[in-house]
């Protein structure tokens, strides 16, 4: 974690004497460990007791709830990293697996995260009957599914674009696969991976809040946490408690940023592969503390030594396999294709069987119609949000002083789980008898519109100064300035932001189109509310149908619109 120079390790005796930074780091680490231990211990309580323990709205419980919510996030993140390393590496290294794994990944990231929580809850509960662990795992699994895909993609893409010279060095010095993984592949993919981890975390808060209180058919599972706290507050129509929940969430996200992400980003700066010294070096107060800690360096030394030793381990045989032959056997290919196609056909057949026993064409049509409604909401709102945030983002991005102030705020808002705000919206909609079909729309992009804003800010602030000066010099103004200077300049950034925002909006529809306040329900026509209602009713065939149709639409939407725009932006509007 820290970044010691090997030379300082010689003076071990001196390094053992703690200095004042050690105390700070020690407190943070031991405190974290103790709290983690409590959390794990309580997760072992049998399920009956958790169903009886209702979440209380006493604000003094909130630190405990916040901690549990955070631990779920961390647990899911650890799982995501493990999955990323294995799945990404498999896909990048085996041509045959790549053929199957990458499309699967592509579809999986279009599947609504909250859609299949009903299945996973039942699955994990059956794995650990009578223990809360099952429910905890189901919740973490939901968060995991919201985090993992883009991380895996990023890792896979890094592995596919390893610099040729470094790859040759690794081969010519005959690195073992293990050494190569930790010395070349993981470090090279680090910057992309960390960025995607941040994006994932930021999206994850939404899902942790949504999946802590789940009702599937007759079973309701409430896991102590901020999400469950707010869910209880909704049931009891307690606006003050909701306020407390919002405050706690804010504190948690800010702390998370300071204690985890800033250090990570600052640390990962050394993995930038371009060799030029960057102008903007990310800094982190907390990382500085860790780095100045001598004690921490000393106690982790055995671990680092042992890890270093594994890198030097060699298989008894000294022969190094040749790189894969460029022309692989046609027969192996053929057999593999047949297996894959047969497998896919079997799965498809099972799906059709399962769905068609209870459902007919009318159900499919209805699901498709509802998906169109949701799609219209997504398109209209992304367009509206773009109209609002692009000019504002450009205005801010061109002013460095404002950028420094607004950018962290925009990132915070993107991370903040918008579903915590939904009760307020329900109250408004009910009070003023607003048309739910229209007013749930803004809620769908409430949390994700910020991705557009902060990407546009980033684009505008990265806009080359000489081009700005040239535009001023030639007196390019007004609409011409937007059309020929600024919009093309920020376009790649805008597309990135809009893709994230649109994906988030689809996912949010499951929560936003079907909201409750006590016994009042605000529901709009859309595939999101369809899935939510079917989940509540425990109607599994219709849940599957809803998820399938929505995933299909999202995938097509991505292929036809976003991916094309992205390629176009990447090819035509790069500013390098």
């Amino acid at each position, binding site marked *: 974690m820290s970044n010691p120079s090997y030379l300082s390790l010689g003076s071990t005796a001196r390094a053992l004497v703690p200095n004042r930074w050690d105390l700070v780091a020690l407190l943070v680490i031991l405190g974290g460990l103790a709290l983690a231990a409590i959390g794990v211990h309580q997760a072992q309580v049998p399920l009956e007791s958790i169903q009886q323990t209702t979440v209380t709205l006493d604000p003094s419980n909130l630190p405990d709830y916040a901690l549990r919510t955070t631990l779920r996030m961390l647990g899911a993140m650890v799982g995501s990293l493990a999955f990323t390393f294995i799945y990404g590496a498999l896909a990048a290294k085996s041509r045959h697996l790549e053929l199957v794994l990458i499309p699967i990944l592509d579809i999986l990231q279009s599947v609504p995260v909250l859609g299949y929580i009903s299945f996973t809850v039942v699955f994990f509960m059956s794995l650990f009957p009578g223990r809360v662990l099952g429910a905890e795992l189901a919740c973490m699994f939901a968060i995991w599914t919201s985090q993992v895909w883009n991380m895996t993609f990023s890792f896979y893409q890094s592995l596919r674009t390893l610099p040729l010279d470094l790859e040759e060095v690794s081969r*010519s010095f005959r690195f073992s696969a293990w050494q190569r993984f930790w010395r070349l592949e993981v470090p090279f993919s680090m910057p992309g991976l960390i960025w995607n981890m941040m994006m994932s975390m930021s999206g994850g808060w939404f899902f942790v809040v949504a999946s802590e209180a789940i009702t599937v058919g007759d079973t309701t599972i409430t896991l102590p946490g901020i999400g469950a706290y707010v869910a209880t507050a909704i049931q009891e129509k307690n606006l003050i408690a909701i306020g407390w929940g919002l405050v706690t969430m804010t504190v948690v996200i800010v702390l998370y940023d300071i204690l985890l992400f800033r250090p990570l980003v600052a640390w990962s700066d050394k993995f930038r592969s371009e060799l030029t010294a960057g102008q903007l070096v990310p800094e982190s107060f907390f990382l500085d503390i860790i780095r100045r800690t001598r004690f921490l360096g000393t106690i982790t030394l055995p671990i680092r030594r042992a890890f270093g030793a594994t890198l030097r381990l060699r298989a008894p045989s000294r022969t190094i396999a040749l790189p894969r032959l460029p022309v692989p056997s046609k027969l192996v290919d053929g057999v593999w294709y047949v297996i894959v196609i047969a497998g896919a056909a079997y799965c498809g057949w099972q799906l059709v069987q399962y769905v068609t026993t209870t459902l007919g064409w009318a159900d499919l049509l209805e699901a498709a119609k509802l998906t169109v409604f949701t799609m219209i909401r997504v398109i209209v709102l992304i367009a509206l949000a773009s109209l609002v945030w692009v000019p504002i983002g450009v205005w801010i991005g061109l002013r460095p002083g404002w950028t420094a102030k607004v950018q962290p705020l925009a990132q915070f808002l993107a991370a903040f789980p918008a579903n915590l705000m939904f009760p307020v919206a329900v109250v408004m909609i009910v009070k003023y008898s607003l048309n739910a079909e229209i007013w749930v729309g803004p809620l769908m992009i409430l949390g994700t519109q910020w991705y557009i804003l902060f990407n546009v800010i980033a684009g505008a602030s990265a806009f080359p100064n000489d081009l700005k000066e040239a535009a001023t010099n030639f007196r390019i103004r007004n609409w011409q300035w937007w059309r020929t200077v600024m919009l093309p300049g920020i376009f790649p950034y805008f597309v990135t932001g809009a893709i994230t925002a649109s994906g988030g909006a689809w996912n949010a529809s499951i929560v936003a189109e079907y909201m409750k306040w006590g016994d009042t329900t605000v529901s709009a026509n859309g595939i999101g509310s369809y899935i939510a209602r079917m989940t509540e009713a425990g109607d599994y065939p219709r849940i599957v149908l809803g998820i399938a149709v929505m995933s299909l639409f999202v995938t097509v939407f991505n292929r036809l619109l976003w991916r094309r725009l992205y390629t176009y932006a990447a090819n*035509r509007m790069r500013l390098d």
Partner: protein
Amino acid sequence: MTSLTKTVTTVEPLLSVSGVRKTFPKASAGDVVILEDVDLALRPGEIVGLLGRSGSGKSTLLRITAGLITPSGGKVIYRNHPVTGPAEGIAMVFQTFALFPWLTVLENVEAGLEALGVSEKVMRRRALAAIDLIGLDGFESAYPRELSGGMRQRVGFARAMVVDPAILLMDEPFSALDVLTAETLRTDFLELWTEGKLPIQSVLLVTHNIEEAVLMCDRILVLASNPGRITAEIKVELPHPRNRYDPVFRGMVDDIYGRMTARQVSTVSEGKAAAPAIGQWLHRVSTNLMSGLIELLASSPFDGRADLPVIGEKLQLEVDDLLPITEAMELIGLAEMRDGDIYLTTTGRLFADSDVQARKRIFAEHLLSNVPLAGHIRRVLDERPGHRAPRVRFESELEDILSEDAADETLRAVIGWARYAELFSYDDKAEMFSLENPSE
């Protein structure tokens, strides 16, 4: 050193390459031949240079020797064993330095030892010794991005030395450095080599810099392109340190220039290209560079004739950058090359004396008649009713003869020249050739 070089020919080679051939599959049917029937032997105590233009396959040959690429035919024998993958005792220094940016200097040097599985203590001791030898003391904990290019390449050398290799392979190790730094590094390396301070027994150096080859090598192998093959072997028996201004040294440089520019003639005499074909591989050369060189040649003291090494030095261009320009000029008919000298043709002189519009006319006229691909594209456009043709039409034609990359470069070269000559225009977004002139 000189006594060593005289005896080397009788010594058993450390590494030998025999009958090596390398082909790559083309986009359309068939293979592109990169290397054809290459033999080479590396004996203890010598530095052997592989000198060739880009595309002559010299880097491919080096990588085959390193066991990084498998040859399509022939074999590589190192210490009586066939090389089937990266072998112990063969280390490489890279043009791009190829340092791990996330590792410190010390960690980078240690990375090679880590792969040998030596103990941590031994690893540290050997790494520090190598760092000391190469002159990197004090930089152990620095990251590569904090270092200058020269220092980075020193790390590259230290990393290669630390594994005690018998053979050092160098892939244009100085070409990414500025002139002064490159010279310092070369001198330092030669000093360590002649004083016997390096563990290595033999060096194979890939370069496109003729002076560098004459300065460092005991033997120089000249590679010709398309397909890459060794056309000459030159022994350099001057004692180290060598003097660049020594007439013998200059004579050798001139001689090698001559051999490398004679390439064109030899291919024609082999009857391969009786008439220049559409599928001739063209290099992208800016028309600005051509005009500039023509103006330089037309002015005094050259007056239409110049020694190539002199021109190269004056323009700070290495042979790899200079020859594509002179060849393009020769192809279009603006200049001629004989025995390492370049002469302006009558057209070239006319071009030099003309104004911008007249130059374009001269250029267009000669492009049409002397570059078959340009003429071909123009004819197709003339014949078609809409005077438009998609890029893919010509691309697929070229790819029947050239590799994908070469076809792409050839098309880009012709597009660049035709745009200057206003012969036809090209829309990159639509990937479409046309006769539309945006100015009309």
